[in-house]
């Protein structure tokens, strides 16, 4: 029997956070690959082409054995949900399909309680991580490099994706900070995100 595939869904704003959302999914998959795990990262086909500020999804999968559902194009049961722009929690059912005991990572300057009050199905969560990514490294990068198989000239993790990935490493043991540091370009933001993340266990 195949081992469990860990599904990670990233929510980001269309166009303005397209690169950041993709960096989070790619950086996570590349870092986990350095542990010898089987990984993949891809855009949501349904959400594209994106328009400015549309909520869109990026997916990553991490598994100890070969991923059998490699060509399934959506994460039906995300274990970790990452929200790159906190206002998305008001507009989408971001925890759709999640089983009990999941994790939520939100890039926000607010406290975890302020985010949780907008999530009616919050009892599915076991951990919430909040990280003020914009305060750590300013605005996000707006760039199309790396999209649709193009060459990524900027590299992974120049903008707010670096502190979000650092915060993610605080809440889960799917990836280690050292492996992320080997992938992410903005090392300082990654470590700051790891230190400043507000981790709160629920239930």
């Amino acid at each position: 029997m195949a081992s469990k595939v860990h599904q990670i869904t990233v929510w980001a704003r269309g166009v303005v956070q397209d690169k950041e959302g993709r960096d989070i999914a790619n950086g996570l998959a590349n870092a986990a690959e350095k542990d010898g795990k089987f990984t993949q990262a891809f855009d949501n086909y349904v959400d594209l082409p994106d328009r400015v500020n549309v909520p869109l999804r990026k997916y990553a999968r991490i598994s100890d054995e070969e991923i059998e559902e490699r060509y399934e194009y959506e994460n039906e049961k995300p274990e970790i949900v990452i929200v790159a722009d906190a206002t998305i929690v008001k507009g989408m059912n971001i925890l759709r399909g999640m089983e009990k005991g999941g994790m939520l990572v939100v890039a926000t300057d607010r406290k975890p309680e302020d985010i949780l009050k907008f999530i009616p199905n919050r009892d599915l969560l076991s951990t919430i991580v909040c990280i003020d990514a914009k305060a750590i490294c300013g605005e996000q990068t707006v760039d199309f490099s790396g999209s649709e198989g193009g060459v990524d000239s900027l590299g992974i993790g120049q903008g707010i994706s670096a502190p979000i990935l650092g915060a993610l490493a605080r809440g889960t043991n799917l990836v280690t900070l050292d492996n992320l540091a080997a992938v992410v370009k903005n090392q300082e933001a990654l470590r700051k995100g790891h230190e400043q993340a507000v981790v709160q266990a629920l239930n």
Partner: protein
Amino acid sequence: MFNIPKEKAVPLGCVTPAPVTEQPMMITGNWREFRPVLEPEKCDLCMNCVVFCPDACFQLDEAGEMVVLNEKYCKGCNICINECATDALIKVYELDFDDGVVRLETPF
């Protein structure tokens, strides 16, 4: 040019009913990061926001005395804030409000 019998001829173009009310298939309220908030004492009803809103979110209220925002469809482009003649509109971060939750299952 063509000899089409009159009973088989169709008029040029076609006619579809125009949306006269809201379009529940195209809710764009969850695109919004910053919401325009009206300060009623500054507003002189110049109607710039009504004209410039690409989604017709600003409408006069029933009494015709003030413009009201339809948050379900406002996608936060903030054009209204730019166009407001009396600076009666300010932009406020969406998480400062408890209302205006759209919560769709899929983006669109």
